[in-house]
């Protein structure tokens, strides 16, 4: 279907893709994996015509399409999706889908007068098609919602839906799974499988989630340093020594040297509770937590997203918030940071009510926040990023910087480099490092591992454990619920902005109800 011959794409001296040769076979779902910075997305962009290749050839159905523009390739049935969803935020979900097919009659003013009937007919047909797509993706209830209001995972589904509105023959999926919870991920996986079987779509997907790769993809192509490392079935790739070395790592087991410590005494073992009793019990526990948002209710102006939600964290503890997409996990954290106005509830830090403080004032009090995206200053060097993190400190922070470099040795090497030139995993390290420069007592992380390879994820979690052990209270939202809960001291499960379950991480992992709903069995 698509043959790529010794493709090269260099950016100045950086050889993002170098001599990559691969073959995407018709009717198959090809997986593309590799460590951060391996050139996967660049390869996609080059195939899709976003970048002109530096060398090599690309054949689509035997036709040489090297150097074609994206819209020409689109017309030939090659469609790509983006790692970060590109929706039209001010149009509804349905409208987003309806506007995908090109050259619609209604796009010409003259047709709105002269071909009224045909235009309306075409529009009605498009509407039916879009509704069918939404049905297929189980998004029908959201048809009239503005696309900008969708959660991250729902946007990914919409992105998939957009490809279904075209006559796509081959679809390039760039990390559809990043930032999507397990249940929704399974839905997306099902949708991809059905599209592949029923409509004969060919897929090539970049994905970091090995479970998804194993389930969907055959063959799997592994990239490293801009070239193809190996190719084979998921099982073969999984067992390949080189791949384990370069990419998969050996799981948290070997890295978790720091967890072998005396566990911080829990106030008491907390059995999984139902909604009603949780609220009652939590109010007692509340006073013991260092940083807590109590009975938070509020949203971004429209409907309330948080519904009497309580989240708290003690010093030296990792607390993870999990839940389905759209449950208000990130919103809960933003409320605790002061980025949205609460109608009810209060935020306490070390026994002081800080509900009235602006985010900057809370930062000054030792709360650090790492946003999910745009979390580094891309035009500044790594060192400058760290200096900005320490902006509020008037004392000498070289010792802190030294500690941070100790924690993230890569950053010491790259401290003169612009943060925008780093790979995704390294950027994530810069983001965490920047937040640590204030010597915070509370560190909040919004999906720190979204879109990073398993190896980097293990590494990042290991660092977070180290930070925890230095006595910092860590609160994070994480889509990778299973891994996150396995390192968490406690976890909160939120559903529709309210507390559903609260328990120790391991207990939540073992809880059959939680497993079924959020961890995908």
């Amino acid at each position, binding site marked *: 279907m698509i043959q790529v011959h010794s493709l090269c794409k260099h950016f100045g001296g950086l050889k993002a893709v170098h001599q990559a040769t691969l073959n995407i076979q018709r009717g198959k779902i090809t997986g593309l994996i590799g460590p951060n910075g391996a050139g996967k997305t660049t390869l996609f962009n080059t195939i899709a015509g976003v970048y002109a290749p530096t060398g090599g050839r690309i054949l689509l159905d035997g036709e040489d399409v090297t150097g074609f523009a994206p819209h020409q390739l689109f017309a030939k049935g090659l469609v790509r999706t983006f790692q970060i969803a590109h929706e039209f935020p001010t149009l509804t979900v349905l409208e987003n889908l309806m506007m995908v097919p090109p050259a619609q009659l209604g796009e010409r003013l003259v047709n709105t007068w002269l071909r009224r009937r045909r235009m309306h007919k075409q529009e009605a047909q498009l509407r039916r098609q879009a509704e069918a797509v939404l049905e297929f993706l189980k998004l029908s209830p959201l048809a009239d919602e503005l696309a900008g209001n969708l959660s991250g995972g729902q946007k990914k589904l919409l992105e998939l839906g957009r490809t279904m509105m075209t006559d796509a023959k081959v679809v390039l999926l760039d990390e559809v799974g990043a930032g999507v919870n397990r249940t929704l991920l399974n839905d997306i996986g099902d949708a991809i499988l059905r599209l592949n079987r029923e409509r004969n779509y060919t897929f090539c997907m970049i994905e970091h989630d090995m479970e998804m790769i194993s389930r969907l993809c055959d063959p799997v192509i592994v990239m490293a340093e801009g070239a193809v490392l190996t190719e084979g079935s998921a099982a073969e790739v999984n067992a390949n020594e080189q791949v384990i070395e370069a990419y998969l790592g050996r799981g948290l087991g070997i890295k978790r040297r720091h967890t072998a410590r005396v566990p911080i005494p829990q106030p008491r073992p907390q059995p999984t509770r139902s909604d009603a009793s949780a609220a009652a019990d939590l109010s007692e526990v509340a006073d013991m937590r260092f940083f807590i948002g109590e009975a938070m209710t509020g949203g971004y102006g429209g409907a309330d997203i948080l519904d009497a939600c309580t989240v708290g964290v003690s010093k030296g503890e990792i607390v993870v918030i999990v839940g389905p997409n759209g449950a208000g996990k990130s919103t809960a954290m933003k409320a605790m940071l002061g980025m949205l106005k609460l109608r009810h509830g209060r935020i306490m830090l070390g026994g002081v009510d800080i509900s009235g403080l602006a985010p*900057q004032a809370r930062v000054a009090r030792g709360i650090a926040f790492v*946003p999910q995206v745009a979390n580094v*200053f891309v035009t500044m060097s790594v060192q*400058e990023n760290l200096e*900005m*993190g320490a*902006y509020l400190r008037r004392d000498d922070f070289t010792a802190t910087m030294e500690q941070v470099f100790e924690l993230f040795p890569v950053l010491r090497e790259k401290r003169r480099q612009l943060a925008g030139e780093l790979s995704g995993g390294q950027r994530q390290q810069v983001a965490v490092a920047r937040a640590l420069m204030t010597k915070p007592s509370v560190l909040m992380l919004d999906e720190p591992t979204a879109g990073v390879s398993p190896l980097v994820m293990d590494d990042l979690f290991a660092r977070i454990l180290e930070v925890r052990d230095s006595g910092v209270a860590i609160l994070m939202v994480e889509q990778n619920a299973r891994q996150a809960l396995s390192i968490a001291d406690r976890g909160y499960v939120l559903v529709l902005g309210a507390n559903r379950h609260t328990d120790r991480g391991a207990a939540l992992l073992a809880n059959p109800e939680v497993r079924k709903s959020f961890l995908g069995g």
Partner: protein
Amino acid sequence: MADLLNALVLFANFVLIPGLSYGAQLALGALGVTLVYGVLRFSNFAHGDTMAFGAMATILVTWWLQARGFHIHPLPTALLGLPFGIAATVLLCMLVERTVYRYYRHKKSPPLVFMIASVGVMLIINGVVRFVIGADDRQFADGQRFLIKARDFKQATGLSEGLSLKVSQGLTIVIAILLVIALFWFLQKTRSGKAMRAFSDNEELALLSGIDPLRVVRMTWILAAALATIAGTLYGLDKSFKPFTYHQLLLPIFAAAIVGGIGKPHGAIAGGFVIAFSEVTITYAYKKFLIYLLPAAWQPHGLVQLLSTDYKFAVSFIILVIVLLACPTGIFRGRVL
């Protein structure tokens, strides 16, 4: 050989030196525009008239000093007036920020609203300047006029073409170089400068790092006001001060900022010289230059002027349109407008 040297001197005298000093003036103006755009995220149409205001304030102080008999011969007295002019312009910018822009910033208005508001500010400042100092040409240059006089140059070299370098031109180039170095040092090395860059890069994250947005806004206006006053005064010294000229300068200044890549300080400098040299080279009459170089039979009869100087603004406009069509991010990949 003498012909070739004469041609080169002619070219340096009428294209190179004027281009350099005009380019430096545009670069300083464009730096102010680009700073405001990079940090405050809107196109400040009032910048040309802010330059006029700054120059006016400097001129008023300069006149007062001249009347009192203060001077720093051979340098122009205006240099003494400059700090006062800067102070007055900073006050003006703060006043505008307080009364106009802060309201829209509080409302989180889109950049377009800021831009339209700046058009209103431009008209008001323009009116104030003309009300205070009048719409006519004003002279305030004193001190020595030339660093190199054309006649001395001719005598020294024996060439028939003279090269002259005005004090104002030399000052413009020297001050521009010093100012640019100081600005880059400030942005790259100081805590405040880095905070400005951080704010420009990612406002949300800058807030999360505890950078005070009001302070960054204030610093930006101080820098923009200082740059505008210096650029305005140097332009006035080099040519003459006329409020309407400054109003028109807005176009080449914006063209310079956009051509270089808006939001990028080094882009503003490059853009300033690109625009200045395009204007000067296209509107220069090459007749004499070619007479020196070409054999007698090929000598031109006309002026060999590509465009009359009346149309010099068309040059920056055309360059602007071409850049926006061909590569909207400019030479140094600034933001897309």
